[in-house]
């Protein structure tokens, strides 16, 4: 103030128009930042969800593998059970057939099933009845048949018939 009696009023660039523009820009910026923050949060939430989903997927994949293994195991069990069932059926039929083979004149006292053979204990009136009525059908079934007799007290003969299936033939049957 070299010449003037009064001091000039303080000047500010922030006129009403500038204040309006600034408030508008501030609001816009705030909204942009809020949107940005919201997007960041959503991005973080999405990444977190994705991570969880991947973990779940991995867990599910692991569980799927386990279930597949179980299925395979169960299928194997099923096949085995079917096989056992089939074998049992075959065995049952074989036993039924075996007992059907036994003529009424021969009485069996014991039958012992082996893995690849059959041992029959019993009593026959004579060797001929045994040879013709029991041994002949057994020979048609088993590969090797051995018979031994010893006399009983009432004059009949006790017999032990040992019959074997050869292994090779058995395996071929299994494969079939």
């Amino acid at each position, binding site marked *: 103030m070299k010449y*003037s009696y009064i001091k000039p009023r303080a000047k500010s660039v922030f006129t009403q128009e500038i204040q309006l523009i600034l408030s508008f820009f501030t609001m816009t910026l705030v909204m942009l930042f809020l949107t940005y923050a919201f997007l960041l949060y959503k991005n973080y939430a999405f990444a977190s969800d994705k991570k969880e989903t991947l973990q779940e997927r991995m867990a599910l994949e692991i569980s799927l593998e386990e279930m597949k293994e179980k299925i395979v195991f169960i299928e194997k069990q099923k096949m085995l059970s079917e096989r056992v069932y089939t074998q049992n059926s075959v065995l049952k039929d074989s036993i039924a057939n075996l007992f059907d083979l036994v003529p009424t004149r021969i009485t069996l006292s014991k039958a012992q099933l082996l893995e690849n053979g059959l041992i029959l204990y019993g009593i026959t009136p004579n060797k001929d009845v045994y040879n013709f009525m029991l041994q002949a059908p057994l020979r048609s079934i088993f590969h090797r048949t051995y018979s031994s007799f010893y006399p009983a007290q009432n004059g009949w003969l006790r017999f032990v018939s040992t019959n074997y299936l050869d292994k090779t033939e058995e395996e071929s049957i299994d494969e079939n």
Partner: protein
Amino acid sequence: MLGKFFESLYLKVIVNIVVERSRTVVYIELCSKKGVVSAHQESFETLDINSTMLEFIRSYTNESPFSYISILDSSAEQGAIPTCSKNRLSYYHDLSACEYKCFDEKWITYTSKTDLYTIEKRYKEIGMDFIFSPFSILSNFFKDKVNGALGMYIVVQDNYLSLGIFENSELLFAEHLDMEHNADRDEISLSDEITQDDIELDMDKEIDLDDVEVLDDMEDLDSFGDIEDLDSIEEIAEFSENQDIEEEFYEAEEVLAESDEAHFNEDYQRFSLIKSSVGNFYSDKKYESQFIENIYIADGIGVSPDLKHYLEEEMFLNVYIRHVDLSAELCELSKMELGL
């Protein structure tokens, strides 16, 4: 820092108001760092601020937050004192109700606090940033002269004369003269004593200044008694040696307004006031009186050649008149305040 940066982006709008007798002149400059971008001037037939003027000013001030309003102080209670020493101020004038401003630690300008308040209140709608004294304009306008030999410098406004006597940048004497106020006080009442016919008659046969009865104040001046001795050719030749040749060239380029009746009345009144002030300067013991040879007039209204003739013929002064655009000078002061 940020404020300076923003300030550089905007134009500075400098509004300068000069209140004349019956109208208000508003001069507006739009300035950038590089200089003046545009200037606009308009005068309004009002002494107050009216809606047209307000609209005109606002149409520019709304363009920039850095708008400055300045006004030329029109207070009748203003003046200048040839000292800055607070102890000596009261010797010249009672400044208890005045605001004052010291220049170069040599002299002060003062004005009434009440008038400053009145101005600020009158222009409260646009606000006020600077109020300048006509003496500031005087010293700034004649800055190439005031630092030289002794001379009288006058700013002529519609209603006022601001008169200062400077020697080597030091103010010796100053008076702010209100034409209307002084017209009542003056013993010479043009309306009463000089009729229109008389004036016309005088105009026809050229004024004989010796016949004009305005020398009442001069009776107090012993020094003027010696002026009669200067009538000899030799003495006048000595005067001519002190003439400001440079100023004469400058003045020759300007065309003074033609004399008419209205100008005659006013210029005669101005002449009377100037003469009275010179008398005060010579007679008042407060001031260190020295003989004035040159008088420089900053003409803000377009005075007639009569004033120059009166002063030259009646008071034997070398008179130089420069035209001044007060509003533009006011703008210069505003720019100096703003450091532009």
